[in-house]
């Protein structure tokens, strides 16, 4: 064992190991709006923002409301030879609901609706009490861990690009117009991007730990 291995536990919380390359850093006060990068691999370790908690909570709430609108309002409207077809995200999800395609239907529903919703809910559960100045809820750490694990699987923004491609493919076949849900979804994507921009993982984890103690 080396000397450092005998550091007692309280001292350890003043250190941070880069999650990506394991380089040790001594935690320093990072000014709001500043950015601390890992010495070795350049990963952003901390980037605290002014009032980040409140903003994340507000944006997540907005995203939840928008998601409900985006799912049930008509998304696209199609006209061809006197026939009309309206379709909501819900319909797109149900498109695969026959026979063999059912698992795919479940997967699509999960990727574009259920997982993003779960992620927003988990973020709210973990952070909302802290934004109001209270101690975090009981399983806040678990909820935030879930939110982080879900991040790559919440694919709302990819769905939007998919819509654009589908529009072009259909354009020759029929006349297409965008419904209200499309705009709700587009806004949702922007709100999500904005929220992720404010979210500094290491800072949030640290805050969660400190607030849970007090």
């Amino acid at each position, binding site marked *: 064992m080396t000397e450092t291995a005998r550091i007692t536990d309280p001292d350890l919380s003043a250190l941070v190991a880069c999650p990506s390359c*394991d380089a040790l850093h001594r935690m320093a006060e990072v000014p709001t709006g500043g950015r601390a990068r890992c010495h070795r691999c350049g990963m952003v370790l901390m980037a605290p923002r002014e009032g980040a908690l409140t903003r994340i909570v507000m944006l997540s709430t907005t995203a939840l409301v928008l998601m409900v609108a985006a799912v049930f309002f008509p998304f696209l409207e199609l006209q061809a030879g006197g026939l009309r077809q309206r379709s909501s995200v819900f319909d797109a999800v149900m498109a695969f609901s026959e026979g063999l*395609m059912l698992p795919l239907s479940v997967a699509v529903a999960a990727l574009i609706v259920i997982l993003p919703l779960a992620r927003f809910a988990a973020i709210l559960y973990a952070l909302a009490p802290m934004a109001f100045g209270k101690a975090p809820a009981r399983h806040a750490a*678990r909820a935030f861990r879930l939110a982080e694990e879900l991040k790559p699987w919440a694919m709302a923004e990819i769905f939007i690009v998919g819509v654009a491609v589908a529009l072009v493919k259909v354009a020759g076949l029929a006349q297409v117009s965008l419904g209200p849900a499309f705009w709700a979804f587009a806004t949702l994507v922007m709100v999500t991007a904005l929220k992720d921009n404010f979210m500094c993982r290491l800072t949030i984890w640290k805050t969660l730990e400190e607030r849970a103690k007090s």
Partner: protein
Amino acid sequence: MENPGRTREILTARRAGLVGCSRCGRVHAPGAGTCLRCGSRLASRDRLSLQRVWAWLAAGIVVYIPANIYPMLLTTQFGKTSENTIVGGVIDLVEHHAYGIALIVFTASVLIPIGKFIAIAYLALSVKSAVMIRGHGRQRLYEVVEFVGRWSMIDVFVVAILAALVQFDFVAAVNPGIAAVSFALSVAFTMLSAQSFDPKTIWDAYEADDT
């Protein structure tokens, strides 16, 4: 933020005899089971990481083959059904002079998946063998692979939207083909493969001498 280690060689948590959490960066004394801050399972290095990477990657490549052979889209117009594979769909778009969209679909469903197979295999191989790109290059490659992988799902969503939208009984109907399922699986498997990779191992090669 300053580094407590030597100036030239960088002190890692493992070298210091400590364990760093790969989720939240909290440093622990060796032997700790779960992270005190975020509750993740602690391991200085994930020993099974590479095995999982290879397993998911193999699964991803296997299901990518039927995804390209079988039809992705079944279009019925006036009783005649035509089948479109992934590449067929791209060619269709080019014939309709939608070059931009064709490029997006081609990138998302051909270039990205294949590029990802190669990139992940390269990352996994280079951990053990002689290092060709320096750490920063490989770190960057890993970040790109993680970021870009999910965008391959575009084609699956396009099929879902079309199938929901174009249902005019006899006049025109679009139905998903079996390739949609295997393609979605391929994307999911390679995403899992990329997530299993432990980026710390990229940097370990530089300190192999003293561990």
